[in-house]
């Protein structure tokens, strides 16, 4: 360990191994996450990072003073090379709950990339598990890093505190975060997996949170998870907003569907939608034909929830029927004259290498004699997405890049707003109601 940082490639941020492991028998999570060029979300500068000092293991009670020491060290180094010190930027407290080392490592990488747009004091609460021997949450790892300008000056700098807890202390992780929150900054709680909404850690962290960000694509049980989240949305005493990275993944799809109806001539068709079919597939790229389509199921339900709540549909008619692998239900239209809407959800198993997630959204609307079909879907199994309207005497097509959006960019977009997204909340409640209809247990695909 040199004790001093230096300009390095993104792939080599903080390569120094900690002196001792944070948990018995395991390698510790590093301080600042590595950012590989291949994963990078943005092509623009800055290209380099500069790790301030070394990632160090400390006593949790010393976190503030140790971070201060890192910054002072960095300022001295900057002065030695004729720079004017470093700018310590903290826009938010970002508290991330990581269930296990692998998640913590991934979270750490996302935070490093996120810092370009939302520099934060990041606090990673690493839940090693109740089963780990002993009890402990007294130690932490602190680190800080800067992005470098093209001229080599240290610019946006961020800091990270990783707090591992094991044994019974894992149940009290929330108490470890409180002393290291920066006062008077908004606090965002990012929960990458499926939160236990009744758990003590979640509930207590909620007390100090302004925005909860989950990712329903990472839920182990997406149907139950959507239901739990919808129940949380309805809690009137909740003092934080809720957002879902999976909702962010739908932005482009929503845009492509919405813009078709920007044409006033088609707008009336929205009152006369007869059928909505949403096809979705497995997320993972592998040759395993038994993969679950669960992560994409949440997205498909949210799309249906979005259209239903925007167009005034109601899920008060029936449960799900199945036709082959397709789930079908009827929704009430916006008024008695428009009839019902047939909703079809179709989980698919995709071939290896295919881009997962939503496969297509199809709507049939307008005149029953000469209906108009809207198809928004992937071109083959590529990342490109096509919108196509046929019927009613017209044909319109357009293509957009629907490549998977990296996690840091999804998170950054939520942090851009930091507020309530009522359209999401309403869509979620409807999606959860759809998931709870009788016969929908297989929507998440074969497990």
């Amino acid at each position, binding site marked *: 360990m040199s004790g001093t940082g230096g300009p390095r490639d993104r792939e080599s941020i903080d390569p120094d191994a900690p002196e001792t492991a944070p948990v018995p028998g395991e390698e510790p999570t590093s301080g600042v996450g590595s950012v590989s060029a291949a994963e990078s*979300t*943005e*092509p*623009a*500068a*800055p290209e380099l990072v500069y790790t301030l000092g070394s990632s160090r293991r400390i006593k949790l009670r010393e976190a503030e003073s140790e971070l201060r020491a890192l910054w002072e060290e960095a300022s001295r180094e900057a002065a030695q090379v004729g720079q*004017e*010190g470093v*700018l310590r*930027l903290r826009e938010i407290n970002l508290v991330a709950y990581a269930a296990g080392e692998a998640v913590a490592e991934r979270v750490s990488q996302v935070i490093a990339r996120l810092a*370009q*747009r*939302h520099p934060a004091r990041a606090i990673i609460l690493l839940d090693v598990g109740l089963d780990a021997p002993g009890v402990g949450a007294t130690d932490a790892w602190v680190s800080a890093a800067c*992005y470098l*300008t093209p001229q080599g*000056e240290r*610019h*946006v700098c961020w800091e990270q505190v990783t707090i591992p807890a094991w044994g019974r202390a894992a149940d009290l992780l929330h108490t470890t975060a409180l002393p290291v929150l920066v006062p008077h900054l908004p606090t965002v709680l990012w929960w990458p997996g499926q939160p236990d909404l009744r758990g003590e850690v979640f509930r207590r962290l909620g007390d100090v949170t302004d925005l909860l960000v989950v990712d329903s694509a990472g839920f182990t049980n997406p149907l139950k998870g959507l239901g739990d989240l919808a129940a949380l949305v309805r809690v009137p005493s909740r003092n934080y907003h809720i957002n879902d990275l999976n909702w962010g993944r739908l*932005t*482009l799809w*929503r*845009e*492509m*569907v*919405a*813009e*078709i*109806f*920007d*044409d*006033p*001539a088609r*707008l009336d068709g*929205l009152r006369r939608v007869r059928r909505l079919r949403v096809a979705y597939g497995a997320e993972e790229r592998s040759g395993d034909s038994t993969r679950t389509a669960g992560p994409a199921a949440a997205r498909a339900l949210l799309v249906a929830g979005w*259209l239903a709540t*925007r*167009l005034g549909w109601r899920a008060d008619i029936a449960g799900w029927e199945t036709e082959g692998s397709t789930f079908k239900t009827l929704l009430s239209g916006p008024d008695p004259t428009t009839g019902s809407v047939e909703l079809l959800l179709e989980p698919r198993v995709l071939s290896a290498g295919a881009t997962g997630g939503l496969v297509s959204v199809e709507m049939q609307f307008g005149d029953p004699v000469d209906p108009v079909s809207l198809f928004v879907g992937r*071109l083959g199994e*590529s990342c*490109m997405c096509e*919108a196509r*309207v046929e019927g009613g005497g*017209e044909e*319109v*097509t*357009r*293509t*957009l*890049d629907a490549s998977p959006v990296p996690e840091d960019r999804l998170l*950054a*977009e939520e942090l851009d*707003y930091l507020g309530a*997204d*009522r*359209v*999401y909340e309403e869509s979620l409640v409807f999606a959860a109601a759809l998931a709870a209809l009788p016969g929908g247990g297989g929507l998440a695909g074969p497990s």
Partner: protein
Amino acid sequence: MSSAGFAGNPLRAGMRLRRTPPPATLVILGVTGDLARRKLLPSLYRLYAQGHLPAGSTVMGVARRDWDRDAFRVMVREALKRFLGAPLQELMWEGFADTLHFCSGDLVDPAAYGQLEEALVRVDGERTHTGNRLFYLAMPPSTYPGVIAGLGRHGLAGRRGSGWARIVVEKPFGRDLASAHALNQTLAEWFHEDQVFRIDHYLGKETVQNILVFRLANAIFEPLWNNRYVDHVQITVAEEIGIEQRASYYEEAGAIRDMIQNHALQLLALVAMEPPIIFAAGPVRDEKVKVLMALRPLRGPEVDEAVVRGQYTAGLSHGEAVPGYRDEEGVSPESTRETYVAMRVFIDSWRWAGVPFYLRTGKRLPKRATEIAIQFKRPPLPLFGGEAAAETEANVLAMHIQPDEGITLKFGSKVPGSTVHVHSVNMDFRYGSSFGGVTPDAYERLLLDSLLGDSTLFTRADGVEAAWTFVDAILDRWNDPAAPPPRPYQAGSWGPEEAERMMDADHREWRRL
């Protein structure tokens, strides 16, 4: 948020990331020119790739070449490969290529407008369906009056059903007040002012847009933004390049027409304007025009005192020998055209009375740099005696516009130790890194705004004429044989010595950039 105009579409509710204009046909008049190939087509491709151009959007290229649609697509593809700055994605290109149409015609010939009208009607029936048309004049300025009148006479300037017609006019907007006024008259004959988008691409840059946000969204700055606290303002638009292949244009224009009349005065207006009653095109442009109208006119010999013009001689640029202006290809050996201008101007308003605004621009300066620097007054009392008093510098708020966009605040801080030493430190905010990733190109932003009908970042007829009124008086003096000629400065230097002396006389100095 999505654009206004889709209020009836319930699916637009809560859509927070995109600004999407309605489908329109963007007609690029002069599509084979440099501007179209380098800027407009790459910007349109990026807008398309980012989903800002909705289904039905069409790009109609117009030029004299006897091309068909396929030949036009080949030209566009070549332009994108060269100027996009990123690889073309084949599937994306195929989608974009589908929007591309071409109309061959010489716009000097009245028959060309009839052909254009036919092509627009056809493409509107096939694709666009809205009747919306945006004409972009990417042609030599000398052709503007004829083309504008041609569009007007053939009914292309009017509404078609619910569809709109707009026109984007590139700079230079006239070469003096008379020609600018005449051009405005020609435009007014056929287009309403709200159909006209006079483009100044500086106004599309993020930092320029941020000037107003920075001033008016932060309560701590606006109280200081006046003659009580501001000592002076410096606006620099420096270029390291020479005149490149544009000798004929530059011999006509010079630095004052090329940079001061438009970019520099627009920046000055944004810095000095009063807060608008709301942030909308009309009120923002009203306030900008008031600033330009309040510029203290320079008359006759006053120009000699307040304005320095220069012309570069041979020198080094980044260590490479470069010729002097008069030795450039296409430039007269006796040319007196200025390649550098520095000036001291005053705004006769309650807020800015007595505060000098220093503007400078030039070619073959040491580096490319555009910035606005607000230099605040020094503390009223040298509280920290001895060396510290001498070390205390004025606070400076610098807004960098290019090459890197960002904002720097310089303030004094005690150097740690037992003695009192004050050193200035910069608090530095850069767009590229502070908000992550790529800031949109200025042309992308302005093209999108013009398609959306948002003219906030475009100049209005009265604004253009107010700027020319101020500049015309300087040009009049320079036409007087009694006026001092352009002062020589070596290529690679920061301009003629007279510009330094002007600042020395005011007990100030140019910022070292």
